[in-house]
């Protein structure tokens, strides 16, 4: 399960990396602290036809929020839909964020931090079923 994690928080990345390693998915996880670099990477992947199976996207990031990342990925929608599951991974408990995520067709689901083993397994199971 090739996964891209976009999170400016080093601790968030550390936690996700450890959990993916424990699940045997460490090699397939690519992490980005900068959302700008992540968008450029994904655009290139779309051109190469190698988009990941899963994207985990933080919302509250400097320079470019998770919503802005989604807007930047919108032109790739036809490549993403049906092939790549995008999960919002946020510490936010704001209902407004949840509602907005549900309205976004690119978003598969919302995960509240901290990520745990059960969620990693659920993401994997869902990616297998696609």
């Amino acid at each position, binding site marked *: 399960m090739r996964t891209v994690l976009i999170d400016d*928080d080093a*601790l968030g990345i550390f936690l996700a990396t*450890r959990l993916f390693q424990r699940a045997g998915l460490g090699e397939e996880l690519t992490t980005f*602290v*900068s959302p700008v670099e992540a968008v450029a990477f994904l655009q290139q992947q779309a051109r190469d036809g190698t988009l990941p199976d899963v994207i985990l996207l933080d919302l*509250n990031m400097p320079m470019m929020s998770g919503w802005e990342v989604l807007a930047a990925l919108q032109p790739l929608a036809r490549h993403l839909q049906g092939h790549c599951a995008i999960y919002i991974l946020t*510490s936010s408990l*704001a209902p407004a964020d949840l509602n907005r995520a549900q309205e976004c067709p690119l978003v598969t689901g919302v995960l509240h*931090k*901290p990520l745990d083993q059960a969620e990693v397994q659920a993401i994997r199971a869902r990616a297998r079923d696609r």
Partner: protein
Amino acid sequence: MLGTSPNKSTSGVLSSSRCLRHGRLARGQPFVGPLQYRARVFPYVFLRALLCARYGTIGGITAIYCTMKAPFPLATSRIRFQSLLENSPELILYQNAEGIMLDANPAFLTLVQQTRQQVRYWSYYDFLPLQVRTLCWEKLRETLATGHSVRFDLFASQGSSAPRHGDVLKVLLVDHGWVVGVHMLARDRSEKVKSQAALFRQNRDLQQISCIVSHNLRAPLANALGMVNLLRIGKSGSWSFQQAHTHLQASLPQLDQVLHDLNTILASRDQPGRAAPEAVPLADGVRQVVEDLHELVVQAGGTVEVYIPAGLRVPTNPAYLYSIFFHLLSHALKYRADERPRQVLITASRNPAGKTIVVADNGSGFEQERAGTSIFQLDQRFHPHHAGRGVGLYLVNTHVERIGGHMEAYSWVGEGARFLIFLPSGSHANRTH
């Protein structure tokens, strides 16, 4: 025709056309006796008057003399208008088409501290600040041009009064088809505007606090929970176990700091006394922060230079002042450019408009265009690769606004950032505008 003095019968001539509408009078028969007459004497007031009418002849014209006992005798329009003019707390002016005051009521005279004779034949615009004269002139022209009443909001001082919010109404006065002037009524809405502003501020604060709880407080807590989970499933003594332990230790002070900030915000809301104006020596307040952050400055290998004129005081309280400079200096040290030694320069100066305080650094800066005006909002973070809670600059801005000032931020990526605090002369705590 109607009585002019209370509880006293009075006589007058009833318009024959009106009387003829009634029963026997309408049929041309003489009538003596009580007559119920509903007189529409005021747009919204109907009075029942008991009339006793009899015929008489004046100069060959048949007239009806009537005696009226009005339960609520009415004053003449002149007296009614005079009473309104003299006793109304609203400002009432009577102007000609050029805006020259022909009359003003005591409420206005008290406000501008002039007598009626002093203000008569003066232009009303002379009592207004320059920036609103055009507005008032245009509204007067609009009233004259359209013939309709014109209502508008005005925030201005009148004469040497303090600026007040007014709901202004201009009403055209026409006599026999000729425009003879314009009435101006101004109702003071300052208290209402003030409470609306307070309500707006409270709503905004509540939103901000909700934002702090759901984002800023939750983020380090989520990290701490995640690390605890890793400690639970990890092998004690392993590298990842140690890492998780270190990260947990880092998360908890962050959580604590957010709680402290939240407490500062709540305390300043709940205890207005905390914000009581107090002339605090600026240099002392800044020196205290620099001393407390000395270790951080040394760790950053940086220098902080302070140039503040001796005796310069700012109207705030020491807690706010400390908070302002603590967060600005922390910000300057945190977002440093790694390739050069950090330098922070804090200067202050007096000028005719008030005081200007500048905190400048040579750090990594941020993209000015992206930051825009939202840099002082919660959850706005502009520095990639740096941890941030997004509360600091919001708190600084809130404190500065609370003491009547405002802030501006300028930055260039890779060159540094400059935060300017403007405090107007006479700015005070709890200022609402």
